């Protein structure tokens, strides 16, 4: 069986996963911080973002970007890869934001109060006191969000991104052998297993940084 297409697909999936992890991490952190903001409307908006995007299917977001946006008077046309990337990032950011908020909430209130009473602004407190501690605590749940994201990149095949599942369907259509999908399944492990190892490594490393006394 010709596996060239599958390897090409794996590379595309890898590219899509890494880029959407980065974008959703940034976007999700911003929204997570917004949820903890002292400004009420900002917090409520961020809350709405998280609740809404966690409760609708990713496919709707992808179709909205692919078919909806060009129909808008703004005529926003994204390429297939960008469609997949933006859709995955917007969807996953809601999950990241939820994890970031939980991390911030797990910190003692005294952290915020102490930093504020030292005269640090809310933004400085967030940047130098709260976020570093929150991130050390949320590495494991963040890791599972990103493993889920990697699996969700398969949905990008529906918007014609030539990633792993897309290529497997081409191979399947040529060979009439659904078992090619079993090989595809194993290929996803090539990404998700190292990701899990990386998360464990980061967890070990940052738990030392958090509690170590230097």
């Amino acid at each position, binding site marked *: 069986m010709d596996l060239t297409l599958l390897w090409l697909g794996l590379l595309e999936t890898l590219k899509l996963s890494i880029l959407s992890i980065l974008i959703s991490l940034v976007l999700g952190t911003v929204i997570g911080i917004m949820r903890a903001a002292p400004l009420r*409307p900002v917090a*409520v*908006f*961020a*809350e*709405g*973002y*998280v*609740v*809404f995007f966690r*409760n*609708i*299917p*990713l*496919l*709707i977001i992808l*179709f*909205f970007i692919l*078919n*909806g*946006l060009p*129909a*808008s*008077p*703004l005529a926003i046309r994204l390429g297939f890869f960008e469609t997949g990337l933006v859709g995955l990032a917007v969807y996953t950011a809601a999950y990241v934001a939820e994890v970031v908020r939980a991390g911030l909430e797990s910190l003692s209130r005294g952290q915020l109060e102490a930093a504020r009473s030292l005269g640090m602004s809310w933004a400085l407190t967030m940047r130098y006191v709260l976020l570093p501690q929150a991130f050390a605590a949320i590495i494991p749940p963040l890791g599972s969000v990103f493993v889920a994201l990697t*699996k*969700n*990149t*398969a*949905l990008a*095949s*529906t918007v014609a991104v030539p990633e792993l*599942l897309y290529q*497997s*369907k081409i191979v*399947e259509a040529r060979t009439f052998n*659904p*078992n090619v*999908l*079993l090989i*595809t*399944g194993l290929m*996803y*492990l090539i990404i*998700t297993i190292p990701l899990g190892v990386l998360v464990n490594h980061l967890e070990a490393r940052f738990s030392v940084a958090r509690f170590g006394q230097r």
Partner: protein
Amino acid sequence: MATLAALRAAPRVRGVRLSSRQQSLLGVAILLVLLPIAFRMDPRNFAIFTEVAIWQFIGAGVLTVLVVSTVAIVASLPIAAVLALGRLSTQPWLRYPAIAVVEGIRAVPLLLLIFYVFLSMPRDVPFGLGRETIALTLALMVYTSTINAETLRAGILALDRGQMEAARSLGLSHWQAMRYVIFPQTFRGTLPSLLAQFTTLVKDTSLGSQISMVELLQRGVIIYQGFHNPMETLYVIGLLYFALNFALEQASLATQRGGPQRERG
């Protein structure tokens, strides 16, 4: 006096406290107002959603979503229980296959599983149902049972060891203890997580559209291909999924609050 009254009144005015549910709904409402403005949706394109026929068409999709996800979750529970017990078994010939099934299926994308089941199914299916409906339900059932198996396993492990020890010292066998002592308690403890899985399932039924099943999302696609209003239709369909899930989540929270709160070991 007036100052005093103002001081007293002040906290009350500031303290318009919203419950967390109201706050979420308010946030979603803000988002739902902002989205049409940001993307310049055309109010005229919403006109078709005043017609009964459109809602009958969409309503059938909502029904499909609910039926498929209910069947999948109910059918997943016995399989999940078997997998969880298998994984906790002391017998290697039970434990390793259970681990392989659970971890293997959880590691692949659900869409891949759906395609695999759909493509390897026989041409003729019973009950006069569509192949795609059966394939989707089966795939969702298998996938959900592996996730629920992990939830149940965690629930069993969370129970006090003394429960099993006490049951065994009363003369119950391992399986009797599981059946009459451990499992009833596990189900009570894990019910909220099992119900939360329902929300995921409702979203995942939308993948059925990829194997040519006419469920809720596909009905939306059919509508916007006919009326050329993709943004507005997807907005309405998205809202429906949200409403379904929000209702389910509230039901799940209600079981958490109102569920039996008996003492556990």
